[in-house]
């Protein structure tokens, strides 16, 4: 009996440890998803307008899954220590449901990341930047692009040539001769006005931003998607091991 006693205690210890880790990861997942939902890089309007805002939905699911994992890990610890079959059965069933939700969240985030190609942002920018309809989302998109071009010193998605290669809502209200590209593509002085308007219109290197904004956008979106999808995946792998251990432990408890 001494040998199997040791076996019990080792397994119990491992399961408690596993559940502690799950609880901590649950809190971390909730915190991370709240961070993403709070729009730290200011790109939410672009994602919202892409008509398929599953990355945001994945983050929201992540918040609730995180809480659930934390609560269930406490339940699991209590069930393991008390050797209670009913508690552990409830724990296993609820954990499986949470597993399914988190799996959906990870897959959604990963799939949506593939959907956000440069052409998607290009089309959105050309069709909605500075469009003169009274749509709130259009205003947000315009503001997002203005801030992006100012802060990241970039222009367009691939470069200023985007504004020359395609007609756009911007082109309808701003003539090509005066605005080959938006003013925010110009290098700005300390006062917030273009350093040299003629240099900017001519495209003189040093007076306008000649690189595209896609790198800046994809960096932020990648960190968003990786944070939700791959961190969730890591948590699920660990949860898988703990659940298998718990099932084995449960089947060995006698009534």
């Amino acid at each position, binding site marked *: 009996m001494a040998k*199997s006693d040791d*076996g*019990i205690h080792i397994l119990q210890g491992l399961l408690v440890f596993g559940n502690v880790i799950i609880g901590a990861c649950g809190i971390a997942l909730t915190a991370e998803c709240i961070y993403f939902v709070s729009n730290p890089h200011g790109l939410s309007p672009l994602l919202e307008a892409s008509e398929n805002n599953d990355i945001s939905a994945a983050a929201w699911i992540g918040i609730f899954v995180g809480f659930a994992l934390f609560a269930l890990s406490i339940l699991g610890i209590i069930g393991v220590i008390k*050797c209670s079959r009913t508690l552990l059965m409830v724990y*296993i069933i609820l954990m*499986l449901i949470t*597993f*399914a939700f988190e*799996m959906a969240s*990870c*897959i959604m985030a*990963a*799939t949506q*990341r*593939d*959907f956000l*190609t440069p*052409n*998607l942002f*290009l*089309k959105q920018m*050309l*069709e909605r930047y500075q469009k003169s309809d009274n749509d709130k989302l259009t205003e947000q998109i315009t503001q997002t692009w203005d801030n992006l071009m100012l802060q990241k010193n970039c222009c367009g998605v691939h470069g*200023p*040539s985007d504004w*020359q*290669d*395609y*007609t*756009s809502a911007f*082109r309808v209200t701003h*003539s*090509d*001769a*005066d605005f*080959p590209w938006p003013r925010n593509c110009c290098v700005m002085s300390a006062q917030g006005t273009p350093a040299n308007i*003629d*240099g900017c*219109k*001519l*495209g*003189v*290197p040093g007076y*306008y931003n*000649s690189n595209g904004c896609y790198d800046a956008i994809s960096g932020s979106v990648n960190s968003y998607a990786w944070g939700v*999808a*791959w961190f969730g*995946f890591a948590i*699920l*792998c660990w949860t*898988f091991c703990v*659940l*298998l251990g718990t*099932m084995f432990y*449960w*089947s*060995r*408890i*006698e009534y």
Partner: protein
Amino acid sequence: LGTHAMLPLLLLLLATAHGLVQIDYTPALASSELGGLVTTSTFTLKQPRCIFREHETAIIWLVVAIPEAVSSFNNSVEPGTPERAFQEFPNSTSAYMTLNTTFLNYPCPESTGDITVLRVGSETNCIKDEMRPTCNGPLPSPGPYRVKFLAFEGSEPVAETNWSEDITLGTAQSPSSISATGSGHSAGMITLTTILSILFAILLAALLAMLIFWSSDACGSSGTFSKSESVSVRRYNTHHVYDQPAARL
């Protein structure tokens, strides 16, 4: 510099009847470093620096024409007339003249620090203004166009450069031609989905196995973790045994 001095003399002999000096200079687009060298309605030329030094008092005009008008171009038509008005181009007239200046603005020598260019099409406030026939307005179509410089003294043309090559402007496509559909799924997403599906399937199978074991009670008592005390069964000698001798009587 030798040929530069020779050719005007040679052409002067040939062109003395017209009194028009042919300068061997071909207008060209400015440096390709400029991002806005050619847009959908403007283009940028190199300035004709030091070219018109023989005609310091003349007014130098830029002529913009469609290529078909080059062979029949009449140098004597004065700028500012309806035949050379920007507003009539290209519907009623095949060429217009603009960007008039004197040699003072195209001095020798060329200062290599500054950007010396001529932007054709930069004036947007006089596009429809018939009072300004020499407007440097944006070009209405992608072209192509050919340009040259023509110097006037009074109402007489005195010098001209060669015609440039064809200059074609950019055309803009509609954004609806951009295909924004995704390029398929990345390897990462497929890996993630596959692994998670397998894990979930294993968990469900383990749950099923667990439930079957529990309901069929097949798992023996070896190695179980029980918390209850062991129950011992004792045999009792009942009073029936002592009654039996009485039945044999």
